[in-house]
Each structure stands twice: as C-alpha cells, then as structure tokens.
C-alpha cells in the first residue's frame, strides 16, 4: 500500500471568486470558496474529502487540477509546482492526474461513442506530440480499458444514451485511466448512482487501485462511502479543512465539534442502532462563504464555542500523531 512518498502536496491553496456587480466595475466582494487548504496525498493511498455542499470540496479538486487558476498557494505534483510551470509543461505534468466527475450524464459528450470518449485524452496528447501510438495500438488500449472497467468491448460504438448511469460512470473511469495517471481526482463519482450500482462502482475503484497502484483524492458528501474507500479523511467546512486523520481514527475518535455533529447526523441503516443514538442536531444552515470571519468559521453553529473562537482563527494542529484538528478545544489560541 502507501509507501509514504508524497505524490501530491497542496499548500495554502486559496480560490476566491470575484462577485462583479457590472461588467466594467471592479469586484468589491469575493466568494471565499477555498480559503487556505493544506494537505498531502501519499502514493497509493485514498484521501477522502468530505463536507456539505458549498464547503469547497469540488473547488479544491478543480483548483488542484488547474481547471481554475488558484488565487494563492502551491499544488506540487511529483515535486513540480503546477501553479508556477509554463502552460506547456503544466499540461505535460497534468497528464499524470485525471478526473472522474459526478454526473455521468453531463460529463460525457452525447455525440461521441464510448470508444471515442475513452480515446480522446490519448488523441489530445498525440496531437501535442507527447504520446507515440499507432491507431491500432490506441484501439487496443481502448478495448483493454473497457474490459478493465467491466464493459464489453463490443459496446465501443455505442453512444452514451444507450448506457445506464452505472455503465456511464464506468466509461468516465476508463477515460480517466486512458493516460495511465498516478493520481485520479474523483469528484462525487457515486452520488448520482443507486445503492446497488454504487457498491459495484466503489468496488471497481478499489480493484483498479490494487491493480494499477492508483492514488485517489476522493470527494463525497456521504460519510459511509468515505469510510469505506479512504485511507485518510479530511473534513471541510466553509473553505477550510477542520480535521484530518486516518479513516478508522477519525470515525472512532472525532475531535472537531463539526465532525462530531456530521457523524451523528448521518443515518445508519440499522433500526436498533438508530433507536439508541444520541443526535447532535446543529442549528441553522451553512453560512455563505462571502465574507471572511475574524474567528472560527464554525462559530455560529458550534455548540462548544468559547470566547476565543470569535476573535482568533484556529489553525490545523496535531492533536495526536497523524490526527490534526483546527479547534481551540485541543490547542490554545496563539
């Protein structure tokens, strides 16, 4: 499994989107979608990123993939900072990192066949002269990938609408594998799927990881999915990581009040367990990330808040080896 070599290192990543009131005016306000996120992904592991809608999970993935130009911070993949590389080199380095998206309906071009969709990343890099492959080799590769993800190669000439949701997600996964990447960014890849199909796709992700030694950054809002798939888990709230730890440790011993609330709110498919559970019901909604708060982002909804939380920002600090949390309950304000 993980040999501790760091494959992806994200430092101080910020992604602010300007809100413009008119076309020519300068932006006065910003959405602070991702506001200073640090994490590292080791080779061969799965880092789960979990949080509610609007907490910045997807924006983080997109900023890592350089689909957005980050406002600040470094994204170091295999020792190279993608944010500082010239475009040509960045694209070459990015070959090592692919994405799988949430919506298997919107993320496949309806006018391309399954085979064309899977071959497209290879074609793009062929055009740039970065891959040397004959057409025959490319076709073999596409068929090989289709079988790997559990699709018959005879489906190569079918169009996306002829596939079910689960099969489409398999096409999306085959496309992400086409360039033989080390890292795959999975942005809610199973949340649009039915329960029985979801478990098939989760197992497929695990099998592919074992076979190709893949590393995943896996985003989901479903805590039980994250527990099943992840080696380590990072919990996000309002643009920041509030807690990060090994999966087993985080679920057994959650430290941040938000993580505790999140875990207690998630329903468990067992009536006996449900009947005995004590819920922490948070009041209010997730606030809008349109202003920067002087203190802790979770202050408004926290049931353990103290005076210090309003004025000072907690930083992510180690509470026990490998378990980092950003909360003043576990370290003093500086």
């Amino acid at each position: 499994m993980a040999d501790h070599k760091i494959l992806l290192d994200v430092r101080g990543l910020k992604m602010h989107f300007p809100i413009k009131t008119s076309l020519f005016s300068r932006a006065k306000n910003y959405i602070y979608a991702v506001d200073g996120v640090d994490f590292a992904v080791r080779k061969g592991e799965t880092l789960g990123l979990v949080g509610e809608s609007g907490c910045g999970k997807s924006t983080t993935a997109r900023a890592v993939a350089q689909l957005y130009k980050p406002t600040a911070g470094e994204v170091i993949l295999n020792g190279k900072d993608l944010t500082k590389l010239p475009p040509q080199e960045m694209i070459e380095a990015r070959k090592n990192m692919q994405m799988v998206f949430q919506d298997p309906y919107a993320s496949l071009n309806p006018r391309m066949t399954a085979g064309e969709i899977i071959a497209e990343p290879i074609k793009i890099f062929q055009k740039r002269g970065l891959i040397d492959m004959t057409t025959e080799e490319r076709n073999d590769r596409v068929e090989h990938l289709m079988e790997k993800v559990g699709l018959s190669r005879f489906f190569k000439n079918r169009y996306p609408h002829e596939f079910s949701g689960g099969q489409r997600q398999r096409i999306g996964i085959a496309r992400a594998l086409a360039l033989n990447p080390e890292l795959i960014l999975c942005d809610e890849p199973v949340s649009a799927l039915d329960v029985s199909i979801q478990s098939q796709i989760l197992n497929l992700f695990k099998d592919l990881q074992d076979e190709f030694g893949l590393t995943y950054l896996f985003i989901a809002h479903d805590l039980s999915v994250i527990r099943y798939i992840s080696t380590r888990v990072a919990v996000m709230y309002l643009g920041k990581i509030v807690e990060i730890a090994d999966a087993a440790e985080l679920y057994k011993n959650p430290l941040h009040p938000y993580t505790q609330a999140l875990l207690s709110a998630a329903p468990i498919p067992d009536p006996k367990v449900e009947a005995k559970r004590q819920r922490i019901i948070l009041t209010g909604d997730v606030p809008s990330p349109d202003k920067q708060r002087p203190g802790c982002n979770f202050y408004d909804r926290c049931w353990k808040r103290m005076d210090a939380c309003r004025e000072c920002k907690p930083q992510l600090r180690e509470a026990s080896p490998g378990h980092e949390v950003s909360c003043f309950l576990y370290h003093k304000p500086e």
Partner: protein
Amino acid sequence: MTDEVILQVRDLKTYFTVDEGIVKAVDGVSFDLHRGETLGIVGESGSGKSVTNLSIINLIPTPPGKIAGGQVLFHGKDLLSMPPNEIRQIRGNKISMIFQDPMTSLNPFLRISTQMIETIQLHQGLDQKAAKEKAIEMLKLAGIPAPEKRIDQYPHQFSGGMRQRVMIAMGLSCNPEILIADEPTSALDVTIQAQILELIQELTHKLGTAVIMITHSLGVVAGMCDTICVMYAGRIVERGRTEEIFESPKHPYTRGLIRSVPRLDRDTAERLYSIPGQPPNVIDLPDCCPFYPRCDKAMDICKKKYPPSVAFENGQSASCWLYTKEAQNG
C-alpha cells in the same frame, strides 16, 4: 400507531404508454396504512415508488399515464373512482404531500403568505386574517425564526432547508390524516437532513398524522419508519416491520440491498457486497421474477412465473419462490 386502517391500496396498477411499448411503472401494489403509522417505501430509481404515491392521490398525468386497475380506499371510499371535485377536497387537505425539491414545488412568483393562505382558506374555510394567523403558527411550529416577517418573503429568500420547512408547514397546515413525503431530504445536506427528519417525526407524532415516506436511503427508513415496503420493478417484493426486515430480510433483493450499503459505524470487511447487473428495463417485462438475472438464489421456476407473496408468522411477507411449496418440492 393504532389498529385503525385509514388507507388501503389494493392491486394498484399504473401503466404508461410510450413509443417502445407499455411501461408497467406500478404493477399490482397492495398495502395498508394505519392511523399514526410511518410507512417507508424503499427502492431504487425507476422502481415505481413515486408513481405509486402519485396514483394514490390520482395525480398521474393522463396521457401518457393511466391507472389500469386497483383501488385506493381512504376510509373505505375509492379515491380512484371519485369525481375530480370530490378528490380535490381530500387532496391537500386530508392527504397532503411534500416533494423532493422544495424549489420546484413552491411558486417562485408568489409570497409564502399567498401560497399558504390560499391552501388554508380553500380547505378550512377560514377568513384571510385567521388563515394568515394559522399560517404563521404553522411556520413557527416548523422552526422558522421570525415567521411574522418571513411569511411575506419569496421562496428564493429561503435556503434549501428552510424551504423544505415551509413545505412541511404547508403540508401540515390543514391537519391531514396522511402526509406523503417523496424523498423529502434527498436534496439536502446531512446536517440539514437530520433537522428535517426530526421535524417531520416530531410534528406528525404531535398531530397524529400517518406518513408515507418514500426514499432510496436505508438509513432514513431505519431511523424513521415503523413498517417498510421494498419495491423492485413496479412491485412490492417485501413488506414488514422495520426491525424485522433489517434483522432477517427474506427477499434476496432486500438482503443484497442492506449488505451493499457501506456502514458508518463499523469497518466494512475487505470488500463490499454488490448485487451484480442492472435494474431491469420496465418496458414490456415478461411475467417472471424481474430480479432473477441478478439473484444469487435463482432457480428454474423464477424464469417462468412471478412468485406469489408468502406471509411469515411475524407479519413479514416476501414475493419469492424460495419460500413456496412448489420450490421445496422441486
């Protein structure tokens, strides 16, 4: 929950005619709902959960849809054969609904007050002022802060969770006997979902309302429902009390479904169970068990005939050949 049955669904069939053939979205569904009971209908997309409930209140768009058979008896009266003006007095009044997406079920052009007062006036015969007071009281019950101010706002001024609270307030404002909740929390975040489920539970217990809860989440039914119906390809394949279904699921589909959900509260063993294959296409289904291509216990007879419903001693029932005499004899 009492023994009094308030709603009986008998052999309900709802078909849709499409270019490719006939879609039997609901094909022979029967169940009873008791006063104050919370009944969960679980199933995957396309299994007929929502169509079942739209059929109950006679809201199937015709054409292409058509209720092809069956009865829905509400206090002994068949809702399906009732004239439109009579059912209109029941729908929204005695039986009300909340839907998955609170943005599309509220009118974006009208203030919350207009929408709520309209319903209350129509069904309760109150005057404008009394109706508004009632609406404010319901919003307050549903946990909306400063309801006197919020009631004059538009739906877009509310967040997703708040809109769902408005829908619940509206749904319960006429003291319905039955509340049909169609995936009420699927569009919401976990922490908001917990708030809304708790609210539905608390209010319906207080008002003695029976709930039909449609959901794809086994976690939601485990925490909320007294009884469960599991649907697959337009039919109920298993039925019973929640604890018993989770404790000893009889139908191979139910068993597979429960095993294929990853658990939050324990380390899942090496590999998650998964049901092979895809849910069937419900166009022109043959008269066999629709689950047999995916079933790990499939026998010859499963390919030939649809299994009858077998009742067990504890009140559970399942439609599966495993439990019939025919199968045991060979």
